[in-house]
């Protein structure tokens, strides 16, 4: 009889400072069975507990092919994230999961895949990007359009560097106007604006997007203008969650629970409730 609310314990094996308020934590389950039975797919999330502070939802930013550990990127915004930020390698956290659905890897095979990310929204996308790049030949053209407020707010700088050096994918980085540094070589402009500039062809393409609600709102508008159908656009929704298992009601949108039926959705699935989401 399993208590669905009880976490497994995991040790922080390393902490990487991404930006002034984002850290990436590498987590390893304490218990070997837990470690081996934790099988996830890109897009899924976990509920991380900082002991005595609380629990919050974080997508898994590493890929299944990154064996032996999972990575979660945490932006410091409140009580729980602050408590997690104060933890060092060696500290114990609680993990419940993996929960939620995952990106439809099979469905996007042989298509042009366009990733559109903003800020820490790159975290769930990174899991998929790493997995996709591990099987590069299953997909047609790959574009990554990623932006943040300023250069210092870009996350996964190591991955970004790596992706930019690859010639089998097209990586376009941007920062908001005013966020550039003198030696910035990327673009300057809001992500949806850069997307319009790049103007990817809708035929045979899928877009996978994640970022702040305002960015998604304008991205969807831009994609609409480029002829993309709602079914071609996949997003992963951020929502306040508590139980993670579809019971507490917090993440309920229409008949869907973001924690169970999502967080990955096509715009077709949520089009009736776009008003209620963004």
């Amino acid at each position, binding site marked *: 009889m399993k208590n669905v609310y009880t976490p497994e314990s995991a040790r922080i094996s390393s902490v990487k400072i991404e930006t002034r308020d984002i850290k990436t934590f590498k987590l390893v389950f304490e218990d070997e069975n837990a470690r081996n039975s934790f099988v996830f797919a890109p897009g899924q999330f976990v509920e991380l507990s900082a002991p005595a502070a609380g629990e919050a939802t974080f997508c898994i930013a590493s890929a299944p092919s990154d064996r032996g550990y999972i990575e979660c990127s945490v932006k410091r915004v409140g009580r729980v994230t602050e408590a997690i930020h104060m933890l060092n390698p060696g500290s114990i956290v609680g993990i419940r999961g993996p929960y939620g659905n995952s990106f439809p890897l099979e469905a996007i095979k042989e298509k042009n895949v366009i990733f559109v990310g903003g800020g820490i929204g790159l975290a769930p996308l990174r899991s998929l990007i790493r997995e996709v790049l591990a099987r590069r030949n299953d997909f047609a053209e790959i574009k990554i359009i990623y932006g943040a407020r300023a250069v210092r707010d870009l996350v996964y700088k190591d991955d970004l560097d790596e992706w930019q050096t690859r010639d089998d994918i097209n990586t376009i980085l941007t920062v908001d106007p005013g966020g550039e540094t003198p030696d910035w070589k990327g673009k300057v402009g809001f992500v949806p604006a850069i997307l319009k500039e790049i103007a990817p062809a809708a035929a045979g393409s899928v877009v996978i997007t994640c970022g702040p609600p305002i960015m998604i709102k304008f991205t969807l508008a831009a994609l609409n203008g480029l002829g993309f159908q709602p079914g071609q656009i996949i997003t992963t929704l951020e929502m306040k969650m508590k139980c993670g298992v579809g019971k507490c009601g*917090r993440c309920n949108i229409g008949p869907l629970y973001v924690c169970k039926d999502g967080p990955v959705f096509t715009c077709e699935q949520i089009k009736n409730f776009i008003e209620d989401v963004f």
Partner: protein
Amino acid sequence: MKLLTPLFRDREIIGPVQEEGRVYFRSLESVADLAWEFGNTVNNIKDFFFPPRQVLYELTGGGVKDAIPAPAGRRVILFARPCDARAIEILDQLFLNDFRDEHYAAQRENTLIIGLSCPEPDKKCFCVSLSGGPFSVKGMDASVCDIGNDEFMVGIETGKAENIFTGQGREAGSDALNRAAEMKKKSEEKIKRAINIPADMLQKFDSDYWKAASAACLTCGVCTYLCPTCHCFDIVDERFKRVRCWDTCSSAMFTRLASGEDHRREKFKRYRQRVYHKFNFYSEKYHETACVGCGRCARYCPVKMDIVEIVNNLK
């Protein structure tokens, strides 16, 4: 009285009691504490499967200590009205399927629900229009109906209740059955209100109607906490205890993220969400409307928002 006394042996009994002019479901010390004359209680029986505050687990020096209730004995909930009994079946869909909630399940297995028919529904009741009724036995393990003359019609509805009244009473004759049927008819006729869930409710989601309809709402939690089918909850840490507690989607904080983002900042969005969740979304997922027509929300709302009026007038 005599009928019920044997039940109290070895069992925790929960039933309606009078407390300063209002009637609540509480754990009883003896049959004498039972309130017999009451319309419906303030709280309802969901409190005993999904309590307002429940410890989920505790972190101790030795690790995680699960706090799944291991009830020592058996429980009987006495005199749940048909609306309240029915509501538990609706909650079962959420709590027992998919990621089974063991806290809920433990209490559910351990509890017998004995219902009491409702000969005097009040003017806020509307159970009939939601496939319920004042003499319905849905959700009950046994049903009791006061048919006058100091006689009670008892129905054994599920196997769980098979032996609880053994040795008492006799098989109901046609006279008793007729009296019960007569009372049922009279009672059903008393219920004049009916909720009419529009077939095109989903299409009206974006209607301007919601702003005006929700204007008076205070976004407190009375309707949610007294509702037999509402079940949203929060999870908080109290030092090293992880606790779950009731919450309401009406609350301004319900969907607010630590970053300040909130997709339901406006009151009308939260009000709309509650109505749709109960009358549309839940049924799409679990094939049950999350409302039993008990009328508590309309009775206790501080500003008398009327869910029947709100849904019936939707345009």
